[in-house]
């Protein structure tokens, strides 16, 4: 089973509208969760991360995510998107296997903000 699942491969949304990008994780990964953004032809950049504490995590560029243990989710939200938010977004988690720690990424969600 996929450790980190991003069900939406593409999400189109109009400028200034709210957006939610979904991420679910499996029990095989730890609850160290991350969201990264990749702008065209660039490497990934951290948006936010959840390690412990408050379940609502605020990140850069107005994004936030909520850790929901009962639903094993870590959805990313922004109340009002801009054209410049057009990018690919990756959810990631740390997987612990036999005492080793590894990063597992979801397959990504392409956010397309329309004028």
């Amino acid at each position: 089973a996929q450790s980190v699942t991003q069900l939406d491969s593409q999400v189109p949304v109009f400028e200034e509208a709210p957006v939610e990008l979904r991420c679910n994780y499996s029990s095989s990964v730890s609850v160290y969760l991350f969201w990264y953004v990749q702008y065209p032809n660039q490497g990934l950049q951290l948006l936010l991360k959840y390690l412990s504490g408050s379940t609502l995590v605020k990140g850069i560029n107005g994004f936030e995510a909520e850790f929901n243990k009962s639903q094993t989710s870590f959805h990313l939200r922004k109340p009002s998107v801009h054209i410049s938010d057009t990018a690919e977004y990756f959810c990631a988690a740390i997987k612990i296997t036999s005492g080793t720690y590894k990063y597992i990424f979801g397959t990504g969600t392409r956010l397309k903000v329309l004028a």
Partner: protein
Amino acid sequence: IAGITQAPTSQILAAGRRMTLRCTQDMRHNAMYWYRQDLGLGLRLIHYSNTAGTTGKGEVPDGYSVSRANTDDFPLTLASAVPSQTSVYFCASSREGLTDTQYFGPGTRLTVL
């Protein structure tokens, strides 16, 4: 400017050839990583190094090798390239372990014919 550099930016390679992708960071980070990014599969970890002198295998290590002779450099070698290794390769580093923020290089686009 501090960060991660990767070279080359892109490369077309004949199958069977040997290729080394270079990665250098100047942030004095202990941990470094190599990922490949393929459409529909996201990023997959190839190899990692928690500190200079040590390396470990990720999800998809077959056909690749790495070395970490010093803190700054983490080259990835394809001993005998195959077409399935056509991908975009990203190097990343973090200060200590995986809970620290990973900083990514700009990537190397490799095509194996």
